[in-house]
């Protein structure tokens, strides 16, 4: 409970764990301050007119990062708390991996096969109360093929966009 209240509302209802946030903000501040320093150091290689803006940005990053660290120690409750993500982190990680694999395979397998496979894989990643069955899988496979083909046809035929084709002889 906050020491100060107005109309029964805490001063900063979000910030309930300033100690943990202080550590996070300190690490983030140190990281960005280091980045600012690296930018300034790297800018020495450039012509003076090309170096002036990166040096300005690097300096601003250092000043702001120091301010963030100072604020998290001096006025921790003035900084809103860092919200932990709701929902499953594992599903996020799996979804991210599916997208990485999809993009990695895109130049080799082409747009259509990878997109249909990724569509189905992402569908499986979404949490659902229903149990996956053969019918459900068939429905999602059909939807994946329909949506990906619709996009592919529209983009290649009407908008003149050359989506990646498969490079593997097996598919040609």
């Amino acid at each position: 409970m906050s020491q100060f209240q107005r109309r029964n509302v805490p001063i900063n209802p979000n910030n309930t764990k300033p100690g943990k946030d202080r550590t996070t903000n300190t690490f983030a501040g140190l990281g960005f301050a280091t980045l600012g320093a690296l930018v300034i150091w790297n800018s020495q290689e450039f012509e003076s007119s090309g170096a002036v803006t990166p040096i300005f940005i690097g300096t601003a990053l250092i000043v702001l990062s120091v301010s963030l660290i100072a604020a998290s120690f001096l006025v921790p409750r003035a900084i809103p708390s860092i919200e932990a993500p709701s929902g499953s982190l594992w599903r996020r990680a799996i979804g991210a991996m599916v997208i990485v694999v999809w993009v990695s395979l895109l130049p080799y397998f082409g747009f259509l096969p990878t997109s249909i496979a990724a569509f189905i894989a992402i569908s499986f990643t979404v949490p659902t109360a229903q149990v996956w069955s053969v019918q459900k899988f068939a429905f999602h496979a059909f939807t994946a093929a329909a949506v990906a083909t619709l996009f592919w046809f529209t983009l290649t035929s009407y908008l003149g966009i050359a989506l990646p084709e498969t490079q593997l002889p097996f598919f040609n």
Partner: protein
Amino acid sequence: MDFLNFAFDTFTLSNIAIAMIGMLLGIVIGALPGLSSTFALAVLLPLTFTMDATSALLFLGTVYMGSTYGGCFAAILVNTPGTPQSITTTFDGYPMAKRGDGGFALSIACFSSVIGGILGIIAFLFLAPQLAKIALLFRPPEYFWLAILGLTIIASLSEGNMIKGLIAGFIGLLLSQIGVSVVSGDARFTFEQTALIGGIPFIPATIGLLCLPVVIDLLSEPGHHLASPLRARNGQFGRAAREIWNQKSNVVRSSIIGTVIGVIPAAGGAVASLVSYSEASRAAPPERKFGQGEPGGVIASEAANNATVGSGLVPTFVLGIPGTPPDAVILAAMLVHGVQIGPKLFTEHGDVVYTFIAGMLFATVMMLPVGLVLGRYIYLLVMKTPKTILAPTVALMTLIGAFAIQNSYHDVVIMLVLGFFGWGLTRFGFPVAPIVLGLLLGPIAEQGFAQSVMIGSAKGDVIGYFFNSTISILLVASILAAVVLPTLLRAISHRRYVPIPETQRANKP
């Protein structure tokens, strides 16, 4: 009177059909995440080669207006801005959709877009020569301060999180430094990667930073993406009309801001919607919580970004300076069709210009019924679509949006890297919208800053050169106000808090 004479020429069957088709195509393309107004115009430009000059301009103008409005669909319903101009629409539009007010949000976005669009076109019609003078008043220091103002505003909107907002803004500026410098020609921060020589492409970066985290978060929880409508579907039109009437000062102010900022070359709809959003939140009574589903936020953003469409054509038509990439495509179409740009355009090519303006006005008015009907059905479609289909479809659109702008696989990789970077930053409490704005404003800020330093050095007074005009001083004052005012207001509200005695505090839950 010239306008009225030529306006009647607009209402031929072919011109009306061209305007309607252009607007519908624009709305559809703009609604897809990542496919911007520039993309819509560039892709559809070849279709105009067989048209006469009037029809070609009418078609492109309505595509531009439609795509600017279309950006609000994805912004409100999926939290993925269809166009950069719609970034601020996500701030309140998406929270409204989440709580079941998506249809209402789309309706007020439609009303605001139409009103803003009409005011921008009227300004273009009656004030073009006068507005063109504003564009000429901006020199390197003013451009620099304008870019910093944009960053400061978005940082100040990061609810009590200004330092993190500013850090994010400067990260965006830093990203804009990657590639060959426009000032010195140095290849900066490319790490010997040829893909980075041309810099970080804006559209893929925007999709990565704003859309990919949405896709990843869609996968984390079961249930439907949006809540069911709070009210009966049929009530949205009247409710939206009443809201617009209640917020008429917000609509007019945002449209004027959009009109004025649209005239300044390179500023564009993203800056206009940001400034008008900031002004709307500042002028609103405290009970209106901007950023938490306040209709005024959607109104401010949409009225301003559509107002820039008409006014942005002023420097293009009068001075031959395309203020934004879409204006450059329209300028190219004018040159292809032999329309000479310049102050005499309105007298020498009155038939083309006035017919174009009347057609734009007609299409913008027609956007109201079309937008309201489309909005209702698209909202219901997105609401009823299960996440198992919605999430992969949005993922597919983000990939296509990143790839399509330059047909480049590297852009997809950049989108992916920045997407994960943006998602990671949000976990540390850093907002990503300032990064996008920093990336957008980076080239303007750098050119303004470096040129000001060079000119100032030549004059022997670098610092003085940054402050030697009224506009510069006004912009600096606005920056200080954006930084100081929220802190001051918070300090005042702190003073109103009173310590609660221990005895009473113990009774609180």
